């Protein structure tokens, strides 16, 4: 496991006390905390290099452009992108998926076509496709999940028989922690003639990602879940697809030439980056990736999987606790319920013990309907969490049981 005694002091927020107790931050699937190195990189950028980018008439602007483009290089290398120009900066996974729906989708999906998503997708990988399908008169087909929380491959196969134009799915489920066989799903979808979109919000921070090995067509990630600032993110795409796609947002930077009544487009990826970009986000992403590189993504994944295993083992010993999701092939996400204690109450009680968890539907209402629950509590781990955090979680859950009189 990772040496958390060395990692924890590098995250200033973890020194904070919550109700007189050590802050136990277990809502990493929502967003991660930021290490000093990332915070410092932002301060350094604004202190020494800030200017608008790609308009380099002076040295400062060249520096800002270099810093921004270095972020792109870092992201490209981090996920083994097809090319640097296949990395489009966005505000995060949600915007990345909306970009694909609004550009590739609008150009390629028509009346009578089918788009496939899964029942474990986050709303951000469902709603953009609903909007597209409603606009185009296309059909949205949702693939079912198995009882133990995996994508139902039989139903996935049936959905592919409709010859969908596009198939979207998460690499890692934010609600269940399931690690899906992303490469296999992409292969099957390609064989059916579909383009694939992978929601990488929960995989990029936690696993070694290789989009070329996965052979998807689009991969969306959020920086803020992987130590980088809020509002940072990227769409990774096959350059040939980006070349064919119409622009998403019109504005400055994304154009080549503008006439009174028409324009031509800048090269990719700039064609999709209209307006002044979030340079700070790119700088922060580069610093976050550098930090993760020093740990090694294989070690990060192993650390979180071990924490999840221990947490599941200890929570399961509490009478009345139900843990959701598969037993294996799972990331550091542990969703659970506890007797008839509502997850929202659980979260309030845990908060008083300094333990931050998420309670609710986790932006996966279709999944919650299938699980037959209105809400779950969710503990999710990252590089700075350790066994002490799990002890605090389990102790706090037991306290909630006492308060609510759950039979032990």
């Amino acid at each position, binding site marked *: 496991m990772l040496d958390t005694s060395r990692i924890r002091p590098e995250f200033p927020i973890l020194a904070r006390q919550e109700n007189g107790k050590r802050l136990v931050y277990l809502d990493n699937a929502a967003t991660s905390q930021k290490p000093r190195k990332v915070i410092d990189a932002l301060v350094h950028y604004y202190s020494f290099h800030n200017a608008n980018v790609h308009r380099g008439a002076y040295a400062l602007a060249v520096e800002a452009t270099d810093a921004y483009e270095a972020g792109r290089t870092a992201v490209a290398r981090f996920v083994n992108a097809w090319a640097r120009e296949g990395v489009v900066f966005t505000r995060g996974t949600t915007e990345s998926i909306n970009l694909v729906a609004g550009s590739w989708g609008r150009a390629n999906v028509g009346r009578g076509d089918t788009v496939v998503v899964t029942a474990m997708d986050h709303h951000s990988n469902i709603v953009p496709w609903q909007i597209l399908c409603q606009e185009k008169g296309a059909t949205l087909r949702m693939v079912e999940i198995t009882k133990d929380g995996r994508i139902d491959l039989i139903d996935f196969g049936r959905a592919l028989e409709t010859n969908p134009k596009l198939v979207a799915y998460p690499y890692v489920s934010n609600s269940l922690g399931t690690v899906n066989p992303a490469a296999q799903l992409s292969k099957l979808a390609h064989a059916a003639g579909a383009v694939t979109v992978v929601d990488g919000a929960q995989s990029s921070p936690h696993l070694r990602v290789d989009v070329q090995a996965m052979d998807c067509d689009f991969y969306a990630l959020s920086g803020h879940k992987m130590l980088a600032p809020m509002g940072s993110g990227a769409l990774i795409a096959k350059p040939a697809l980006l070349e064919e796609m119409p622009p998403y947002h019109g504005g400055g930077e994304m154009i080549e030439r503008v006439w009174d009544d028409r324009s031509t487009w800048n090269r990719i990826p700039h064609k999709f980056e209209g307006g002044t970009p979030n340079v700070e986000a790119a700088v922060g992403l580069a610093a976050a990736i550098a930090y993760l590189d020093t740990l090694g993504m294989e070690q990060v994944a192993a650390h979180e999987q071990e924490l999840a295993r221990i947490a599941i083992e200890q929570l399961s010993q509490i009478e009345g606790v139900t843990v959701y999701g598969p037993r294996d092939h799972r990331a550091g996400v542990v969703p659970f319920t506890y007797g008839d204690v509502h997850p*929202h*109450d659980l979260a*309030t009680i845990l908060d008083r013990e300094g333990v931050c968890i998420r309670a*609710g539907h986790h932006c996966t209402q279709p999944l919650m309907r299938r699980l037959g*629950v*209105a809400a779950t509590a969710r503990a999710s781990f990252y590089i700075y969490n350790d066994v002490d955090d799990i002890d605090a979680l389990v102790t706090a859950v037991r306290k909630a049981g006492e308060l*609510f*009189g759950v039979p032990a």
Partner: protein
Amino acid sequence: MTDLGELYQQVILDHNRNPRNFKRLESANRKAEGNNPLCGDRIHLYVHVDGDTISDIGFQMPQGSGCAISKASASLMTEAVKGKPVPDAETLFQAFRDMLAGGANAPGKLAAFSGVRAFPSRIKCANLAWHALHAALQNNAEPVTTESARDF
């Protein structure tokens, strides 16, 4: 645990465990649905208004939804307004809201929710049933939501 004890007072825990008027009211002539999209909680409220009086009232929270605060609040609300004239129920609604916004305690058992003030993330849970009641009494068929632009 003192502050948690103030939030989860015995009367709240009791009404969460044994909610009163927890029923679908077939005779209802006013209905409303309340949603808290943040946590997925939903309430169906059934009211029978006879002349100017709330002669009967019931509520349901589908699919195991409803945290202790929202369920106990709905339960205590039904007890508080049952048999009361409609204007009195609206006055209680205002008093309850004022209490959660930092004002004086609401009358009777409703004061048990004064502890919610210290938990801003839970105020919407406590208010949900009351907003549904208000909508039902206004004969507003639109589901109320804790995320509407209106002040909740």
